[in-house]
């Protein structure tokens, strides 16, 4: 039996920008059907890796494979039908309404002179319901709160209806309630809709709680990967972050929870 290869892979990547090398010989496999979270300290190369995997920033060496093909050889519109991405920053055009913005997610599916089809409308409606923005569909995006706006952007990516979804620090700028809402939305997308997600997160405990597959990075290298409950140890956290901590069990989700020791306590 032929072994099934993962849809998204990075092969011997050298990553960097402006002559600065961030990572060398980095190979990574994104397991299908999992919610992968990439963690690591600032400047460890996690966002750069995500940008390379999503063809935003091509690697200096090596290649990213999407369904076994070099992503650089595929047309960017073809990639956009298979892989959705929420970048760190996007600007909403002034005056655009929520439903208009979400509708832009349908661009990769529309031919040059494409009319708006029923399936486009259905995808937009579904995306807005999933993110809870259907009620504010007619409102201008400018006038929304940060949390609402972030959900609108995610709705746009969902309207793309891609089997693969990459999100670069989607919880930044959100308060804790909206962070949890968003993470649970991602969990639903993974568990109920079978989508493969790759998310860069800063909060370790959230990462452990929601990831089904965790990738821990440090200075451009993958230090450990696997289920959070299997790989998270005080030693790993100290290696990755240089932080001494104890690991307890999350009383609700029963996942590992990191409690830093802080100064002067052994």
């Amino acid at each position: 039996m032929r072994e099934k290869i993962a849809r998204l892979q990075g092969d011997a990547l050298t990553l960097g920008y402006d002559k600065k090398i961030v990572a060398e010989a980095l190979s990574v496999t994104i397991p299908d059907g999992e919610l992968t979270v990439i963690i690591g300290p600032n400047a460890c190369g996690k966002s750069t890796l995500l940008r390379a995997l999503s063809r935003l920033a091509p690697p200096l060496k090596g290649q990213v494979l999407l369904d076994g093909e070099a992503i650089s050889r595929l047309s960017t519109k073809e990639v956009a039908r298979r892989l959705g991405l929420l970048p760190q920053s996007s600007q909403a055009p002034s005056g655009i309404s929520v439903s208009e913005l979400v509708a832009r997610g349908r661009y990769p599916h529309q031919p040059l002179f494409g009319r708006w089809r029923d399936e486009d409308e259905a995808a937009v409606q579904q995306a807005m319901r999933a993110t809870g923005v259907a009620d504010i569909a007619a409102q201008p995006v400018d006038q929304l709160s940060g949390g609402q706006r972030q959900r609108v952007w995610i709705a746009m990516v969902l309207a793309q209806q891609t089997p693969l979804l990459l999100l670069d620090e989607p919880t930044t700028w959100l308060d804790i309630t909206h962070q949890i809402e968003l993470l649970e939305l991602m969990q639903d997308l993974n568990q109920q809709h079978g989508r493969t997600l790759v998310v860069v997160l800063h909060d370790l405990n959230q990462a452990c709680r929601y990831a089904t597959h965790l990738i821990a990075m440090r200075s451009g290298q993958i230090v450990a990967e696997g289920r959070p409950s299997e790989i998270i140890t005080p030693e790993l956290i100290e290696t990755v972050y240089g932080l001494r901590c104890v690991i307890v069990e999350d009383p609700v989700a029963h996942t590992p929870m990191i409690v830093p020791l802080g100064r002067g306590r052994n």
Partner: protein
Amino acid sequence: MNRAMIQAIWLLALCALLAFLGVTRGALPVTAAQLWQLVNGEAARNVQLIVLEWRLPRVAMALLIGAALGISGAIFQSLLRNPLGSPDILGFNTGAYSGVLVALMLFHQTSEIITLAALIGGVLTAALVYLFAWRNGVETFRLIIVGISVRALLMALNGWLIISASLEAALSAGLWSAGSLNGITWAKTPPVIAVLLLALLLTSLLARRMRLMEMGDDTACALGVPVERTRLWLMLLGVVLTAASTALAGPISFVALLAPQIARRLCGGIKGALPLAALCGALLLLAADYAAQHLFLPYQLPVGVITVSLGGLYLIALLVREARRQ
């Protein structure tokens, strides 16, 4: 029917009204009845000559060139995300006019060669401005400053070219150097019309990508827009629209700057901003040209003088608003 469509109908109606005034008013007034006779092919010879050969090409080209300038401005303002990032401020039409002047002095003055020279001048100027502004990428603000200075240099060059030309060439070129629609005949228009229509068609194909790129390069790329290639094409189209217009009418300023901004205010959003920018440009140039011909009788001003004055008023208004805000 959405707001943009209603505004578009208003603008079209105003354009039609001004076009009617444009072909009927003048030293020899033409009545509506005579115009109707003309449509039925029963008009007198002199009416035919005045309307079809003298006034119609001027009105038609004011509309087309105005629309082209409006779209050109909308393209650059969208790409640079700055209201001052317009081809006339950046000096692209001045550069195209340098091309025209060189062609006038060195070659036979066929309209094909003049159009080609304007395109070369415009594209070279754009490349030059871009090159000077490049420092690990192009920052909008630096691009605008570099554009303004290149424009100043080119204006000096144009002045020198006119002075060193023969008296006859200098007189016609000098009158034209503010941008003018005087003396346009059908014979001069075919190459410009062809280039403008082609560029407008290609722009309409890229319009959707342009809107997506306003959300940032990353987001546009994520949605499947080939960002760098699209940007290059749009810039080329923007320069071509401005340069081809300059080949026929000289460096008309401020239509490209003003039209997209008025369009933006009118439609209040993003739907239909590009067609509205074209309509605003067409209306603006037609109105300015009508004013240039009729307001200061017995003198006929070049239309560029009117548009520059409008632009000056607009910039003052902008300054006043900024000052009040602070």
